[in-house]
């Protein structure tokens, strides 16, 4: 059942359309990964859904409430972890979290217990009495994430939770986000880290220039890329245009992604038949191969595949599907 449903949700900043007639449906109890390059409109979407900023046009139903007509009711259901930590500089982590828990209606006992527990989980217990302005970027981010983990809202908007956070911290936070989902929260995870979206999300949507390009489970999206196989070729010299054209000429080759001028990802079918031919091609063109590897598509490929298209093409695709 959909817990969030947007209807032509649009936000314009002067001439710029940050979110463009977005139609999006998020199911109760899922982790929905909202992916997109910088400036795609992820944060703007999250801010509108959480009633922080008003849409220019369109609306959304969050819980059972319209964000335009009943914003006060919507706010009782939601919590946000902001992309940029929103903390008063003169405050301390403990004060910030204690006050947040109080405003969100936790009882005194529950509050004390959870603030301590979560601060320990994000490794901030020892820093709880430091001034915010004396914390490192990643530490501030941990405090920001802690807010939502303490609050446990029915609907949690989490905007890039692990940017600036170290690898160990990342895994901890991912686990805590999963726990939050398992305890019954619906999670909207805005991120431009594909790996994060892939490991966490039940479904992902890829946004680009304010529009939703595709929306499905990570697996379906990966399978949807034609050419179920990928061959990664590392060359010793830069690839020539001639070779690229010849590669694209194979009927089994679906797409050639030039990661770097000497690093190619070739999406293709019937890998066992084509690989020898490809190797011959490189040999004939005197382009020595330093390594060759076969792999499966990742969300990266899905991302490049879809955002590499123009909006018009993507729209036509989603219509013809």
């Amino acid at each position, binding site marked *: 059942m959909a817990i969030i449903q947007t209807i032509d949700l649009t936000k314009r900043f002067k001439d710029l359309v940050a979110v463009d007639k977005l139609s999006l449906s998020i199911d109760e109890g899922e982790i929905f990964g909202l992916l997109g390059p910088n400036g795609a409109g992820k944060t703007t979407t999250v*801010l509108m859904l*959480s009633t922080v*900023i008003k849409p220019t046009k369109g609306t959304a139903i969050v819980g059972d409430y319209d964000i335009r007509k009943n914003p006060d009711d919507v706010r009782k259901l939601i919590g946000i972890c902001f992309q940029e930590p*929103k903390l*008063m500089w003169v405050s301390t982590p403990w004060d910030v979290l204690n*006050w947040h828990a109080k405003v*969100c209606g936790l009882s005194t006992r529950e509050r004390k217990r959870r603030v301590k527990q979560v601060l320990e989980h994000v490794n901030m217990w020892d820093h709880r009495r430091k001034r915010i302005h004396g914390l490192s970027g990643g530490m501030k981010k941990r405090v920001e994430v802690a807010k939502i983990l303490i609050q446990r809202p029915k609907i949690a908007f989490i905007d890039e939770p692990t940017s600036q956070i170290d690898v160990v911290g990342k895994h901890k936070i991912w686990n805590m986000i999963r726990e939050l989902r398992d305890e019954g929260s619906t999670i909207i995870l805005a991120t431009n880290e594909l790996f994060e979206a892939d490991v966490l999300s039940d479904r992902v949507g890829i946004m680009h220039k304010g529009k939703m390009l595709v929306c499905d489970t990570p697996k379906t999206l990966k399978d949807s890329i034609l050419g179920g196989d990928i061959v990664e070729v590392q060359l010793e010299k830069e690839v020539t245009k001639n070779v690229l054209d010849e590669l694209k000429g194979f009927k089994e080759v679906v797409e050639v992604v030039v990661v770097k001028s000497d690093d190619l990802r070739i999406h293709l079918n019937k890998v066992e038949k084509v690989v020898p031919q490809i190797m011959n091609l490189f040999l004939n063109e005197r382009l020595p191969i330093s390594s060759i590897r076969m792999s499966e598509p990742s969300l990266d490929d899905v991302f490049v595949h879809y955002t590499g298209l123009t909006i018009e093409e993507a729209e036509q695709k989603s219509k013809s599907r």
Partner: protein
Amino acid sequence: MKAILHLIEHDFRNFFRYKWWLAGLISMNLADLLIMAVVYNQMLSPEIAEQIKSYFSFFAPGVTVVGLFASAFMIGREINMEVRRQIHHYMLSLPITRLELALGRLLAGGLRGMMYMTPLLLTTFLIIGFPSLPQLFIILGALFLLATGISGVSIATAVSITSFEKFITARGLIYYVLFFCSSIFYPLSLIQTLGQEGIMPQPLVVLAELNPLSNGADLIRAFLLGNPAFTFDMIRNLVVFSAIFVTAATIAYMKIIERK
């Protein structure tokens, strides 16, 4: 309702983080009082001296109101900073209605002003004498209206003028006009006389008469010194001032802030 209390708690915590700064400011206010009282006393013309007795007791209520003004205005500076750093997005995302948010911040600003003013008011009482209990309630009620009104002015300004530079300029302008076009430093009767003699432009005289800072200071003087005489216009002006700016700030907070 609970939400309003939480907001007041929030703003009081922030206020106390500046406790040394505040202590410094209060000391400066008191030092002003002493220095100006001693120096200005020597500069008074005989007629004025007769009217106000000592500049010290005349100025003490003025300093009280100045302290109230400066401290109640601080909430605007904080909200302006929040809007500039987009920390207000956090406030707007909390399970609080916009009206509660606006009223909470307004009241917090006003109450912080009242708290800051208390030592100044006590000093005034110690110097001039204590009012009767009913008078004390009227004084506190009137000063509370003044404080929330000022808090309202500061919030409305802070939300509408986001750029820090422009906000500071606007604040300076408001301070300047309200301080000097008032009976804080000189009796209203003197300003009125200067107006009749054509020395002071009439609009400035009217401004000084309606100025809530004049009304606040003169109300204290009326009860403690008997001069100027108490009039209900003082209360009425404060009620109108407070009502206008509480409404302005509420509208600003409810309507404008979501567009930032």
